[in-house]
């Protein structure tokens, strides 16, 4: 079902309601200039509500097709990511209200407007099925992210983060669009399905050109999800950006990057495989092996460099690089099982990583520090905070009974089902062991290091409530994860070529 522009509009309500909210936010910001309070945040949350309702409605409707004459995909895969992104944005709005980085100063309206614009970009990114649309929505996400990374105008670190982000982003999206132009030359179309058709009948002699174009396109996607050769920006940007923005970048745009990676490779570069739920690469070039190597390199580099970090935001940045590596393990398998594990892990990662950053925000509010040594004695000074942080860190490591364990379990179960990637599973397990070391360092600082008679911290009840909202699912999905697994399994129906 290919819908034209007018017929597509009624499937475009989630995006349209976000656009509307952004405009309303900007206009209200002008009209009520200088009015105190956090009303901009509540307007943003109120705008996410209709987007959520429309997204759930579309998801439940279960229709599939392509919108705007083949630009966007309408399927449950895009629906799943829309709901995930709304979750990420809503949590980010809430932690932005708490954080002293972002809740003060002018331009509050702009901050939330940009946040919603990134969400809009992510919506489009997860559903684009045309090279032009992929590029456009990737830029929408990137450019607004640059602005948010440099949101603390007076802070040197923040400006540095934004500048580095712009330069890395500009170079990698330049390389990506060059790769796309090569791909267009090979296939004669920018539509992913058409590209698959053209490539599956192409002569083997085009393989080299195809390989080069895949490498170039990977530069753009790899930069968004922070895989190894393109990860250099991550620590500096994550450290310099306001903490709520860091939390958002590590779960939102990263998940969007994975969504577009899956859609690009599973739609244009792979077709129906030997059995149900399996894909086969379109030509003999071994892109699954290439991504397997990237995955191994990414998790190893992320984990090894994380060991030496003393700033907790930098540590979590390297940890987020490592997690991109873990998630990529599911990508190389070309099976529905692998995809399911990826999506499951993205949900779990969203909850536990925002949770960990929330603790960082609350501690930074109280102690004005992001150094791990200042977490000393937190177990006595703020017991609930320290226990919550421990839960999130255990979950990030993958220790039962937390959601992170189930997520890793799915990933490893998927990868052990394919003989040729045994080595990757072993690399993954070794890396998990390494990661325990640096996560445990924080826990050790909180509980085992004596604090020199410092007073207990007073944590506002709102902060405790929000913390509980994140701790509960982290443990709950570690014990009873069936509903989430079913939701993920339902979301795997996406438009695919050749089926």
């Amino acid at each position: 079902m290919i819908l034209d522009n007018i017929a597509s509009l009624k499937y475009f309500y989630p995006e349209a309601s976000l656009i509307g909210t952004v405009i309303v936010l900007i206009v209200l910001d002008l009209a009520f200039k200088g009015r105190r309070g956090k009303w901009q945040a509540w307007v943003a949350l109120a705008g996410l509500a209709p987007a959520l309702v429309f997204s759930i409605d579309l998801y439940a409707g279960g229709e599939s097709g392509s919108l705007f004459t083949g630009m966007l995909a309408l399927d449950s895969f895009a629906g799943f990511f829309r709901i995930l992104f709304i979750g990420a944005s809503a949590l980010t709005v809430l932690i932005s209200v708490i954080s002293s980085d972002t809740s003060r100063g002018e331009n509050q309206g702009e901050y939330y407007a940009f946040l919603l614009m990134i969400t809009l970009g992510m919506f489009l990114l997860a559903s684009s099925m045309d090279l032009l649309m992929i590029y456009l929505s990737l830029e929408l996400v990137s450019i607004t992210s640059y602005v948010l990374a440099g949101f603390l105008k007076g802070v040197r670190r923040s400006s540095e983060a934004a500048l580095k982000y712009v330069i890395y982003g500009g170079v990698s999206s330049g390389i990506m669009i060059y790769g796309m132009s090569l791909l267009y030359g090979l296939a004669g179309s920018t539509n992913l399905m058409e590209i698959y058709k053209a490539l599956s009948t192409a002569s083997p002699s085009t393989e080299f050109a195809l390989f080069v174009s895949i490498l170039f396109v990977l530069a753009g996607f790899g930069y968004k999800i922070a895989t190894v050769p393109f990860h250099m920006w991550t620590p500096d940007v994550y450290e310099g950006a306001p903490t709520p923005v860091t939390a958002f970048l590590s779960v939102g745009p990263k998940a969007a990057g994975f969504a577009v990676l899956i859609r690009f490779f599973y739609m244009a570069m792979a077709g129906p495989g030997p059995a149900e739920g399996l894909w086969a690469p379109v030509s003999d070039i071994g892109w699954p092996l290439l991504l397997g190597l990237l995955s191994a390199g990414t998790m190893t580099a992320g984990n090894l460099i994380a060991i030496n970090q003393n700033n907790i935001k930098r540590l979590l940045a390297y940890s987020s690089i490592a997690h991109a590596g873990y998630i990529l393990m599911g990508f190389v398998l070309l099976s529905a099982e692998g995809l399911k594990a990826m999506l499951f892990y993205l949900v779990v990662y969203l909850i536990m990583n925002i949770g960990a950053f929330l603790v960082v925000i609350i501690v930074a509010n109280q102690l004005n520090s992001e150094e791990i040594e200042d977490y000393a004695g937190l177990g006595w000074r703020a017991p609930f905070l320290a226990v919550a942080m421990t839960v999130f860190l255990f979950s990030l490591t993958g220790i039962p009974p937390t959601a992170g364990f189930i997520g890793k379990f799915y990933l490893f179960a998927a990868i052990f089902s394919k003989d040729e990637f045994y080595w990757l599973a072993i690399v993954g397990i070794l890396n998990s062991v390494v990661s325990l070391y640096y996560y445990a360092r924080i826990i050790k600082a909180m509980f085992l290091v004596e604090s020199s008679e410092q007073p207990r911290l007073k944590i506002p009840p709102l902060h405790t409530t929000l913390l509980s909202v994140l701790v509960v699912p982290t443990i709950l999905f570690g014990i009873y994860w069936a509903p989430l697994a079913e939701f993920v399994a339902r979301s795997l129906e996406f438009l695919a070529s050749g089926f």
Partner: protein
Amino acid sequence: MELIDYLPIFILLIIAVLFVGGTILVSHMVGRRKYGKEKMSPYESGMIPVGDARRRFSVKFYVVAILFVIFDIEVVFMYPWAVIFKKLGVFGFVEMMIFIAILLVGFIYIWKKGALEWA
């Protein structure tokens, strides 16, 4: 297309590199060198250079440049729209009005925020 078919392009590439490299090398080896004040001064399209080029620009230039791009693109979209206006009918008109309305909100926003004032 086999890889061998790209051979002419490759040969052209080699010739181009050799030609440019060769000319520089030969003029470096046999050419005479005379240096004077005029010759060593930076070339500024025939004018006598004034001051240093590495000056700090006001950041306002960038703001104006970015705003210019946005409204420039708006006009770029309006040209083809105007050409086939009659063919598009009411739908095209409404669609363009929505587009302009969104940009108008942006315009009022930057106006009120003072981005258009130089001082």
